[in-house]
């Protein structure tokens, strides 16, 4: 029986090669305005490709 359930792939490493296009939403433009919520944002490239 497995003891470890892995929820996702190595997303950070995978994003390193193609990231940094700068087209995604700025974090304070979403809902926070007082804390930094970079991790809650989406990737513009992924959203575009899924359309």
């Amino acid at each position, binding site marked *: 029986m497995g003891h470890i359930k892995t929820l996702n*792939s190595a997303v950070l*490493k995978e994003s390193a090669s193609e990231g940094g296009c*700068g087209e995604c939403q700025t974090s*304070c433009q*979403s809902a926070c305005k*007082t804390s*930094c919520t*970079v*991790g809650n944002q*989406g990737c513009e490239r992924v959203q575009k490709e899924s359309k």
Partner: protein
Amino acid sequence: MVHSFEMNGKYIVLDVYSGCVHDVDKLAFDVMNALTPPLAEELSDDILQKLSAEYSADEIREVYTEILALSRAGQLFSEDTYKEMILPSDGELPPVKAMCLHVAHDCNLRCKYCFADDGAYQGSRALMSEEIALGAVDFLVANSANRRNLEIDFFGGEPLMNFGVVKKTVEYARALEKKFDKNFRFTITTNGVLLNDENMKYINENMHNVVLSLDGRKDVNDRVRKTAGGGGSYDLVLKKLLTMAESRNQDNYYVRGTYTAYNLDFAADVLHLADLGFVQTSVEPAVAADDKEYALREEHLPRLFDEYERLAAEYARRMREKDDEFRFFHFMIDLEQGPCVIKRLSGCGAGCEYVAVTPEGDIYPCHQFVGMIEYKIGDIENGIQNEEIRTKLNGCNVYTKDVCSDCFAKFYCGGGCVANAGIYNGDVNVPHKVSCELQKKRVECALYVECARGS
């Protein structure tokens, strides 16, 4: 680096540098916590001995096989390989692509915790002229280089007090889109007092996102969000905010509250907003100097952590049982499709890709710096004049902040709010401690939700 924690009966392991999240049993949790990388092919006798009171050698070896396989696959105990990616190569500053446009330094509410000084931002009350607003759009386009997606947030004070200029700005920016190959996305942040059928229709037709301010339960909201006459604002705005949310099909908006030392039981406020019928919710901690009565201080953290965990359990239950589901911004982490690691390491972009513009046309690194003259970086008429501050902020990332070096949450906060660091610690590279602690708990809760919500 690995971060392991237990929450509400779940054992969770985050492999910080790969971003992998592992939902594990107690045996795997204990074995992982006993290990120190790099991992050897064979498990040492020391580890077997250390865990022998609780587990047999066969059990430990079995789980070690799984751990070793994940480690070899780069999903556990992975190394930091990102530092070189964000080292400035040629000193060039990034294009400006997002703007907080303060169309009104005036407000029709008098909220006690307002960082904008009830809208005036330590200055005089003022509305932005059309000339300044259109000049700000020109500045944004001229400084955006090859960035296509440009963002403007109509902010204040209360932007609906200057809605004519908001509309002129939208119209002008739209007219530039084709010529310059740009795509504008507008957001408006409002307290809702002046919302009516006409401006809601306009907002729905033109705004990509709407942020609606409401703090939660009536007594909590009305204690701090007061009218100019001193009364509460809950009854004044609730129906309008709900109408706004419904009219957007419960999407592309947030009802956004602030919690303070007055409502350390803020989970009740988040659930109140959800139970009112708001689907997209965001409730943020107030950040204030310790001498303010409403300020969140270190002594409040244990209570706040309990609240986050309680909220996470109920949030996951509602998702699992599909019972009055809602979305809470702090818990929204897309494990497979989040932002790239470069964005995560670089932070919010204040002063670089993001700027704030005042009614007078002064440019600051972000809305929170507005009114702090030492942080002014230019004005609409003359453009950027203080490159020193921009360069300093551009060089600010998770590798320039000592406290981020061993922090598991750095890929989720990007090193935290530089304004809070600058304002409360006098150094943009020294993050605000209470904010950091809350951020870490938020991330843990978000990961817990991913493990506990079911598929």
